[in-house]
């Protein structure tokens, strides 16, 4: 008559269970790492989109880019306001008539550059670019 497990049976069962659990936790660990990496990529992407969308509004409303514009700084004239975009201290900053406000947090955006061709402005953030044209040119 059986009354339960023998020691051998218990050991075999535990060995199989531990083999299974170690492979499961290995896979689970991989997934967690991959998810964290993807989350970082998405956070950066969202920050990029937020800044690009802000720029889109300004560039479309702008009459002209000011001569102070360079590959690291975008200066726009909108009505009677002067708006500048630049990258400093790990943040993208927008300066309107002397008042500066950050558009991103430190670590989200690593590079910002501009290039110009005619009435087109290309803004490049973290290797993602958006080209926009100035609509209200006189």
């Amino acid at each position, binding site marked *: 008559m059986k009354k339960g497990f023998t020691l051998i049976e218990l050991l075999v069962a535990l060995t199989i269970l531990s083999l299974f659990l170690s492979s499961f936790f290995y896979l*689970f660990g991989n997934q967690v790492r991959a998810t964290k990496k993807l989350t970082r990529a998405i956070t950066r992407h969202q920050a990029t989109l937020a800044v690009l969308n802000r720029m889109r509004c300004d560039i479309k409303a702008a009459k002209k880019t000011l001569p102070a514009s360079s590959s690291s700084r975008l200066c726009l004239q909108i009505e009677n306001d002067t708006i500048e975009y630049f990258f400093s201290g790990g943040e993208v900053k927008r300066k309107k008539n002397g008042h500066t406000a950050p558009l991103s947090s430190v670590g989200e955006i690593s590079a910002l550059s501009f290039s110009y061709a005619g009435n087109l402005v290309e803004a490049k953030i973290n290797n993602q670019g958006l080209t926009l044209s100035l609509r209200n040119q006189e």
Partner: protein
Amino acid sequence: MNKKGFTLVELLVSFAILMIMASTYNYLFIIGKTRTEAALELSRATYLIQSEMERLHALPFASLAAMPASAFAAGKGQIRIAPITPDLLSLQLTLNYSPTSSSIKLHTLRSSN
């Protein structure tokens, strides 16, 4: 025979069931990751195709009308411009993007004034 506990075979069967359930869970994780990656790429592709459309928008009507079918974004994108009437053009952009080899299309009209 009077059984009072599990047998080894019963225990192994229960492990097998547990394993199947756990692998389903793992599979869901992988699907979630794939879909999120696809959404990220779609969002990037949208910006790329918008940029190209914006570049075309800045060109004068005459040079758009004379433009042959061409490529952008290192050959992953196609520009097709067809006249509808003499003063109206159909602009069609197609962009193929990884990793799921999907494509995105943007279609708009441009008039001469």
